[in-house]
């Protein structure tokens, strides 16, 4: 008897619902005012305020209610799609390395390094429009791939050693990146750390001028299809999955598989390298991150929610971006902290990576006997 929760999609949805419920209850609890005379009045007011906040949280990326009328919320919708773009890229990057069974967690640094290198190209004028944009992407991708070389080498030498090397590379990307921005392309007239404005020829096509909805998400979805095709429909993809499911196979079956191990991580680095640059050339028009934006870390949860299958990556990235945008709106108009999203993310990661949980094997033996009894 197979538990219904061992079906992947059902499992993911169950855990998402679980995490949202926990977030809801936490919010209710944080709103209970213990000083009121009647506990139940306090409780119902806490539920009322939580419901208002959660309504905003879960609907605001799509709709906006103005004096009883429902309007389409173009601003938040644009933000949603714009925020989905980098998450698809890093989600694909992490899915790739997870498929080959490597814990290369360097997407954050690859993304940051790629964005810094791309920004250095973006400030140059004059270049023909299309060539400029292509050059920016090329440089970002190559930088990302280079940033993946050392962790890839480490994983080639010894399994799991890539974890620490890739984590260190994230720090290196941040410190060196900020140094490069400060030293070479900083806007000296601004008090905050930001680069000078990018050249107009680097500007990315916009779908919506007012809210700066750029076309990045289309490229991201196309890339997801390409990666999915490579991974699921080619011999190369089959090899990767074999290495991923049986590391000893790669160890003893010769140089070609080891080369695949390196190649996958370089491709993953190149994809992660371009994740951040969309936002800079499409939305901000300059480099203005004074801290690392975290898309690389988000790629981990996106990949986990997508069961490391590239075809599900856009969906899971869209979900994450949706609750992010919703939470930002909630934080703006209510007193609930938008950091609630991190709690939801954490619960999703912890429960989803626990394969043994919620499947029939994880139940206590006596439970299993009982279930067996019921199901004959």
């Amino acid at each position: 008897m197979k538990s219904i929760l061992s079906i992947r999609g059902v499992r993911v949805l169950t855990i998402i619902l679980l995490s949202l419920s926990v977030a809801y209850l936490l919010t209710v609890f944080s709103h209970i005012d213990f000083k009121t005379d009647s506990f139940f009045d306090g409780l119902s007011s806490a539920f009322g305020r939580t419901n208002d906040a959660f309504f905003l949280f879960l609907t605001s990326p799509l709709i906006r209610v103005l004096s009883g009328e429902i309007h389409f919320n173009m601003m938040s919708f644009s933000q949603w799609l714009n925020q989905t773009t980098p998450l698809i890229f890093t989600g694909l990057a992490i899915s790739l390395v997870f498929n080959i069974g490597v814990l290369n967690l360097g997407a954050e640094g690859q993304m940051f390094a790629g964005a810094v290198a791309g920004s250095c190209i973006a400030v140059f004028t004059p270049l023909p429009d299309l060539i400029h944009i292509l050059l920016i992407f090329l440089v970002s991708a190559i930088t990302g791939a280079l940033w993946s070389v050392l962790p890839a080498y480490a994983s080639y030498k010894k399994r799991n050693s890539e974890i620490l090397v890739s984590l260190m590379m994230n720090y290196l990307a941040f410190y060196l990146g900020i140094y490069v921005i400060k030293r070479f392309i900083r806007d000296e007239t601004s008090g905050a750390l930001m680069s000078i404005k990018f050249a107009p020829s680097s500007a990315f096509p916009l779908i919506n001028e007012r809210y700066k909805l750029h076309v990045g998400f289309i490229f991201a979805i196309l890339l997801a299809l390409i990666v999915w095709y490579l991974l699921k429909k080619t011999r190369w993809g089959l090899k990767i999955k074999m290495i991923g499911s049986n590391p000893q196979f790669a160890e003893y079956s010769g140089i070609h598989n080891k080369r695949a191990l390196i190649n996958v991580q370089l491709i993953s680095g190149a994809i992660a390298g371009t994740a951040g640059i969309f936002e800079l050339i499409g939305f901000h028009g300059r480099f203005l991150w004074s801290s690392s934006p975290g898309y690389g870390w988000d790629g981990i949860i996106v990949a986990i929610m997508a069961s490391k299958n590239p075809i599900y990556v856009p969906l899971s990235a869209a979900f994450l971006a949706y609750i992010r945008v919703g939470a930002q709106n909630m934080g703006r108009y209510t007193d609930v902290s938008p950091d609630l999203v991190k709690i939801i993310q954490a619960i999703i990661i912890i429960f989803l990576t626990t394969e043994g949980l919620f499947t029939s094997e994880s139940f206590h033996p006596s439970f299993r006997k009982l279930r067996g009894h019921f199901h004959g």
Partner: protein
Amino acid sequence: MVNLLDILMNPSFYATIIRVSTPLLFASMGALIAALAGTPNVALEGIMLFSAFSGTIVSALSQSLFMGLLGGLASALMLSVILCIFSLKYKANIILTAIGINILSSGLTVFLLSAVSGQKGNTSSLQSAVFPQIHFEFLEKLPFFGEILNNQNALTYCAYISVFVVYLLIRKTPFGTHLKAVGENPDAAISVGLSVNKIKAIALMISGLLAGLGGIFLSMGYISWFTRDMTGGRGWIALAAQALGGKSVIGVTLSSLLFSTGESLSYSLQMADIPNELVQSIPFIITIVVLLVYLKVSDSR
């Protein structure tokens, strides 16, 4: 303009190294114990952060330093137990579970912060307790070194004591022997009747408690409030320090001091013309190089 030589001649530069090494030493000793058991503790960052938060909150609510300490340690233990349950009992990937715990800690601290104190960024409005500085009379007469070693926070001295305690634990107790057996050869450990999971769980809990002390220093030592994400990557740096120092207490202590020197230099150099981003990246470059050289050498053997 500040001269590098001036910085190096100034005892306050070294006193800063000792001070900033406090959270790092605690956490890297935690990283070491976990690494010895063969289970890297990537959750150090989140555990430190949560302890820093709950230490401040509990001490502010109870107006007691001791209760704050207990609160901080209890929350460190709680997160470690969560890590153990999911990774050891339910066989989740320990790295991914730990990343989940880090995110949980980052989110939950800010969420609870605004729920408890109504503030979004920090707890500076709360009256929370602080560990005292300790003044040694006999160090006053010692020139230069006296200035460096004297008047540090009580927890700073504890951090250096904890290095000795960890050394003794690893070298002189049966638990230390079991720890290494489990880490190096789990199959052999099972065959002599050791419970691998139990020893790993204990190692992760000790590791968490040490990281918790490091977190408590951050919000109840040098400064007296909690700010969001105040650990600033120290948990990750502790992992780097452990990787650089290998599996020896002395090695990890020295590499922690190297990272602390980098941090202290970056403070001093803010006045100087040398970019502190480059200074701060040096320990990471050294760590990466050492890791890769180690991989290359151990492979060719």
